[in-house]
C-alpha cells in the first residue's frame, strides 16, 4: 500500500500542473540571501514580537513625471483643494464635503493609498503584503510602504497603518472602492482590529478619471494616464500579474531582490495618483475655460452637475460642444447640456440644443430619439405648436426603438390628432422645424 504522502501526491500533482507561473522555486538557506531591509532600502520595525519592514521615501518639489513636476501639484496651504469633494463617490459627496471642510481643526491630511496583494480574488486568503501610503508634507511628497515580510506580523503592521491613517481627512485611491478598501477591511477584521478607513471620506479617482480622461479604446489604467497626461513612460515596470508570484518567491526563498521592482511600481502608482488628483482638483478650481480637451470639459461639466454647480456645468458643457470635432461626442455634450437646461427650466435653451443634435450629420440613434421626443413634448406642451410636435413625433417613429417606446409615440400622435381636430392648431410658420430630408 502506498504511503499517505504518495497517494496525496497522486491526487494533488495533476491538479496543479501548469498552474505555477513565476520564477522557479529555490530554497536558499537563511543568511545566504541579502537582508530584505538592505535590498529594499527600508528599516525593520518591531512590534508584538514580530517584525515587518517600513520603507520611507521623500520626493522633492522638483521631482518629475514626464512633463509634470511635483511642485505643480501641491495642494493649497489648507492641505486640501477646495473642490476635492467633487471627486468623491456619488452618494458620499455631501458627507464627504462636510467631513472635509466642516471641522476647522482637522489636520487636513490627504492619504493616498495603494495596495499590492497576493491575488485579485479577494477573500480571507488574499493578503495585502504591501500597504503603500503617500501624503503631501509642505512642498514635498512623502511615501511610506509597509511590507509584510512574514505573515505573523500582519496585526502589528496593520496597527502601524492605522496609526499613520489617524487624523487623515480623506483617503484617495484608484479603484479603491471595489478593491483596496474592502480588502483592507477584511484584513483588519481578520486581525480583530477596527479599520481606520470605515468612516473616512473617500475619493476613488478611477471614476472621475474615466469621466475626464478616458479615451475611446484605451483602458483607464494609471500607466496609460501617465503616458497621456504626463508624457511619462515607465521603464522596466513590473507587470501586475507577476506581482503575487514575486512575493511568493520571496516568502519561500527569503530572497527579496525581485521585490524591489514591485515596491517601485507601488511608489510610482501612488505618486501618479497624487498627481492626477491634483490635476483634477486644479481643473475644477480653475473652471471650464482651462480644460485642455473637449472630453475633459464634458467630464468637468458632469462633476459640477453632480455637485449642483449648474452655472459651471453649463459653461463646461457649452465648451465641450464647441471643442469636440466629431459629431458623436458633440451629440453627447449637447445632450448633457439640453438635459441640464431642461432640469433648470430653461426650456428654450434646451430646445435649441436638442435641435442642434438633429442637425448633426451623424448622431447615435438613442440620442436622436431622445431629441425628437423632447422636442415633441416641448412643442406640444410649452410652445403649443401641435404641427411641429407632430412632425417631431413622426420623425421619432422613423428611428429604431423598442415596442414600448413606439407605442408611447403612437399615443402621442393620437392625442395630437385629437387635439388638432377639436381646436385646429395655429398654423404658425414654423421656422423652428428643421428641414426634413437633409
Amino acid at each position, binding site marked *: 500500500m502506498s504511503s499517505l*504522502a504518495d497517494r496525496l501526491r497522486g491526487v*494533488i500533482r495533476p491538479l496543479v500542473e501548469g*498552474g505555477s507561473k513565476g520564477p522557479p522555486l529555490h530554497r536558499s538557506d537563511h543568511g545566504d540571501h541579502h537582508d530584505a531591509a538592505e535590498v529594499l532600502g527600508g528599516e525593520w520595525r518591531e512590534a508584538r514580537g514580530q517584525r515587518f519592514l517600513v520603507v520611507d521615501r521623500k520626493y522633492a518639489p522638483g521631482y518629475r513625471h514626464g512633463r509634470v513636476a511635483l511642485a505643480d501639484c501641491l495642494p493649497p496651504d489648507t492641505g486640501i483643494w477646495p473642490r476635492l469633494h467633487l471627486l468623491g463617490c456619488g452618494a458620499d459627496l455631501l458627507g464627504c464635503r462636510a467631513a472635509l471642510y466642516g471641522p476647522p481643526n482637522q489636520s487636513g491630511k490627504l492619504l493616498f493609498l495603494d495596495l499590492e496583494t497576493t491575488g485579485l480574488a479577494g477573500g*480571507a*486568503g488574499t493578503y495585502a503584503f504591501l500597504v503603500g501610503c503617500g501624503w503631501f508634507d509642505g512642498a514635498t511628497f512623502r511615501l511610506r510602504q509597509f511590507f509584510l515580510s512574514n505573515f505573523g506580523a500582519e496585526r502589528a503592521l496593520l496597527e502601524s497603518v492605522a496609526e499613520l491613517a489617524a487624523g487623515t481627512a480623506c483617503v484617495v485611491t484608484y479603484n479603491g472602492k471595489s478593491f483596496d478598501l474592502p480588502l483592507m477591511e477584511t484584513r483588519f477584521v481578520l486581525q480583530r482590529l477596527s479599520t481606520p478607513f470605515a468612516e473616512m471620506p473617500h475619493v476613488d479617482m478611477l471614476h472621475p478619471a474615466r469621466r475626464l480622461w478616458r479615451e475611446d479604446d484605451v483602458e483607464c489604467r494609471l500607466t496609460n494616464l501617465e503616458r497621456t497626461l504626463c508624457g511619462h513612460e515607465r521603464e522596466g515596470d513590473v507587470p501586475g500579474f507577476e506581482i503575487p508570484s514575486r512575493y*511568493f518567491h520571496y516568502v519561500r526563498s527569503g530572497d527579496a531582490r525581485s521585490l524591489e521592482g514591485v515596491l517601485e511600481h507601488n511608489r510610482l502608482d501612488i505618486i501618479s495618483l497624487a498627481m492626477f488628483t491634483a490635476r483634477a482638483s486644479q481643473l475644477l478650481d480653475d473652471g471650464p475655460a482651462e480644460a485642455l480637451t473637449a472630453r475633459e470639459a464634458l467630464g468637468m461639466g458632469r462633476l459640477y452637475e453632480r455637485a449642483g454647480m449648474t452655472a459651471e456645468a453649463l459653461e463646461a458643457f457649452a465648451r465641450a460642444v464647441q471643442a469636440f470635432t466629431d459629431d458623436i461626442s458633440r451629440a453627447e455634450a449637447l445632450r448633457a447640456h439640453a438635459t441640464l437646461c431642461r432640469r433648470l427650466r430653461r426650456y428654450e435653451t434646451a430646445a435649441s440644443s436638442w435641435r442642434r443634435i438633429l442637425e448633426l450629420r451623424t448622431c447615435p440613434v438613442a440620442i436622436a430619439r431622445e431629441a425628437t421626443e423632447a422636442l415633441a413634448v416641448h412643442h406640444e406642451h410649452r410652445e403649443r405648436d401641435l404641427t411641429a410636435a407632430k412632425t417631431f413625433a413622426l420623425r421619432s417613429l422613423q428611428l429604431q426603438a423598442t415596442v414600448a417606446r413606439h407605442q408611447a409615440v403612437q399615443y402621442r400622435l393620437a392625442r395630437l390628432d385629437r387635439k388638432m381636430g377639436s381646436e385646429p392648431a395655429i398654423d404658425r410658420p414654423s421656422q423652428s422645424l428643421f428641414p426634413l430630408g437633409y
Partner: protein
Amino acid sequence: MGSAAWFVKGINYRLVGLSLFVRYHAAVMLPARRTDSAHDHALQSVVDRLTGGLPDRADTPDGWVTAVRRMAPRAAEYAPFPEGVDSRLRQALCARGIEQLYIHQAAAVEHALAGRNVVITTPTASGKTLCYNAPVLSAILTDPSARALYLFPTKALAQDQLAELHDISDRLSRLAELEIGVFTYDGDTPQDARRAIRGRAHVVLSNPDMIHSGILPHHPRWAKLFENLRYVVIDELHAYRGVFGSHLTNVLRRMRRICQHYGSNPTFICSSATIANPKELAEALVEQPFELVSESGAPRGEKFFLFVNPPVVNHQLGIRRSYLAETRRIASEFLKRQLQLIVFAQSRLTTEILTTYLKDDFGGQPGTPDQIRGYRGGYLPQRRREIEKGLREGSVRAVVSTNALELGIDIGALDVCVMAGYPGTIAATWQRAGRAGRRSGRSAAVLVASSAPLDQFVVRNPSYFFDAPPEHALINPDNLHILVEHVKCAAFELPFTTSEDYGKHNVQEVLGVLEESGLVHRTGPAPDSTEATSGTEAGPHDHEGTWQWTNESYPADAVSLRSISSDNFVIVDTTKGADVIGETSFNSGPPTLHEKAIYIIEGTLYQVEKLDFVGRKAYVRQIDCDYYTDAITYTKVTVLDTFAKGSGIGDQGSGIGNQSSDSVEAGLQTRLADRSHGEVHVSSRVVGFKKIKFYTNENVGSGELDLPEQQMHTTAYWLTVLKPVMAALPYAPDDRRDGVVGLSFAMRQVAQLLLMCDRQDIGISIGSGEGDDTDLTRSGQPAKLSDEPRIFIYDNYPGGIGFSEPLFGMHEDLLTRTRALIAGCECQHGCPTCVGPVGNTGPLAKTVALRILDLIGAMQCRGGSLDPPQIEVA
C-alpha cells in the same frame, strides 16, 4: 356533485382561519374538522376498485396490484412548551392557535435550547420546521445578538422557508420591538443587497454551495454572524449522502474552524426524512454527538398504500404494459372522483408526457384556469409559486412533478399521490408518498412500477419496502480527492497551525504535500520544537508554526460540492452555429459522447460528429432517426490492496491487514466463495457501441471505437467464485461465463438498492483482478473467465465514496436479494429486469446465475426452494 366537495373543503380551511404556518408546523387547537364523508367515500371507492374491495389481502407478487397496506389513523400527542422558550414567542404562537406542542416538537426544542445537537426524523408535514424555528427565535428574543444559519439543499427550499419565517418573525418583531432580520443569501441575491444582509440578518437561509464559495472564504465580512452563531440548522439531512454529503462534512469542518476563530460554538438542529441511520448520518456529517427525536406526535388520517405492476404483455421478452399508460389510468380514477392529486414522474420528459395525457382527459373548459399542471426544474419561479398556491387553495386539482416537489416545498396536503416508477430509494418513496395525507380523513399513495429492475424487485417484494428499515445514507468525507480540495479552501480561509487536526488523515502531511506544489508555505518554528498545544483556541500561537495560503487563486472556485472532479465535457450543437446545449461529467463523457453516438435532450435527438477528447468538447448535430446508441465499455479492475476478506455466507469477515497471506490461504480451503473489499485500480475503455431501435429495442447495427482509457484508483467490494463452485457447474465454459455476467448484472441492481445510491455511483466488472488482458465478447465482457472469477462492484469515484465497506458488510443480504430478484422474475431466459437482456448475456445466463447462487448458499436465507448444494471439495 363532486366539485361541491372541493368547494366546501376550501371554505372549511378559510373558515377556521388556517394559515400555512398553523397547518404545517404545530399542534393546533382547532374545532375538529367536520369529517367530509363524501370525500372519504370517494377515496375509499377508488381504492376498492383497484384492490377488488379487499384492502387487507395478502401480497400477490404476480398480480396487478401486488400489495395493499392500510395505515391506521393516529391521534395527536401533545406536550407543554419546554422551560426556557421565550414568553413572547409562546404568546405569538398562542395568538395563532398553537397552545401546546406535539411531543416531538417539545423534545427537539428542549434539546436545542439546552445546547444539545438534535436530529429530528418524523414524517412529512408533522411540523418539523417549528422544531428549529422555535429555539432559534427564542434565542434571538432572549439575546438579540444571537445569529442562526439555515442550510437547505436547494435555493427553492430556502425561498419557501423564508416566507414562512417572515410570517412569524414579523409578528415577533412587533411584539418584542426588535427587528428580526431573516434573509436568504444565495447565488440569486443581488450584489447591492448583500452588504445590508450581512449587517442585518439574524437568520441567514442559504445552501451548502453558497456557504462553501461565498461565505466561508469571505468570513471577515460575516464576522458578526460567526461571532454570535448560536444555531446551525440543516434541513433535509438525508439529501447529503454520497459525494454531496462528503463535501458538506468538509464545509462544516471549515465552518467550525472559523467559528472557533471568532469564539462561537453553534448547536446543530437537523431534520431528515426517514432513513435507517439518521443519528449516524448527522454525527458523520457534523462530527459531534447528536440526540435523536424520531417519535412523531402529529395526528394522521387513515392511509392506503398500493403497489401496482403493469401486466406482462410479452412473456418471451418480459415486456410489460407501459407504466405511463398505467399511471394515467390510475390517476384518472382518482381525478374522476374529484380527489386532489400529485403524480411523480421520473424525468422532465415523462413529467411533460403525463401532464399532456391528464390535460387531454381533464382539461376543463378552454379559457378557465388550468386545473392540471406540470411542475419541474426549468420552470420560472413565478410559475412555480403560482402552481404551489393553486395546490394549497385547491384550484389546481392535479400536479405532475419531477422530484422537484419531493422536498419540503409547501403545497399543502393532498388526497392522493401516484408515483410513476419507483423513486429509487425507500426514503424518497416515503417522502413522496407523504405528499398525500391529511391530519384527518383518508388518503392514498400508489406506486406504479416501470420495467426497470429496481422497480420490479420492489413491487414483487413488498415486504422489502414496508418492513425492512430504509436505506443507510453513506458518506466518506476523508476521500483524499475531496479532502485535499477542502484543506486548500480551509488554508485560504485561516492559516493552519502546525499542531492543528482536520479530518481523519494527518492534515500536517497533506499540507506538507501541498507545500511541495507551492500552494501553502510553513512559517515559524519547526514542528518538533513546538510545545504541545491544542488547536482549539483562536488564532495561531506565537510559539507555533503556521501554514499560509500562498497562491493567488481562490480555491473554492475550483470545487463543486456536487461532484468530485470539476472536469467535464461540453456538448456543442453545430446545427446552426455553435451553441453549448449541455454538459456531462468526465466519466460519462466517452460512453455517451463518442463519435456517432445519439445524444438525447428533452426528446430531441443529436448525433455526435466529433469528440474532442483533449478539449473536452463534443460537436453534435440535430438528426432525425429511429434508434439510440448504447456504448460497450470494457472495464478492467486490478486489486491493489485487500482491506478485509471473508467467506461467502455467515461469517463476520476479518480484517487481514496484519495477517500473513499464508494463514489466510489456509483458512479458506473449504470455502466456496469469498467476499472482499479493498483498494483497486479501474481502467475503462469504450470499445464499441450498438444501435438500438426505439420501442422495439431491436439491435440494428454496431460500430467499433477506439477511445482513450480512463483510469482511477477507488475502492471496491468483490465476490470471488472459487474453483469448486465453477467446477461443479454442469455447463459449457461460455454458458458459465454468461452465468457470471448475468449474476453481476443482477447484483449491480441490488447493490444500488442496498446502498441508496444512484446508478452511476457504482460500476461493475468481471475479471481475475490481477491485471491480465483478455479477449472480449461482443458486449464487452471477457471472452474467457479465469479459474476463480471475481465480480467487482466499485465506487465510481476517484478515491471511493464509502460504498465498498458497507457492501462488504451487507454481502449476505446482497446475495439473498439477488437470488430473489432472479428467481422471482417471470421471464424465461433473462431480461433487463434480472440478468440482462438475452441478446447480451446468452440463453443460459439466468439458469447458471441461479445455480451459482444456490451453490454458494444464497438460497439458504430466504425463499430458497432448491436442494442444498452438493459440492465435492477437491
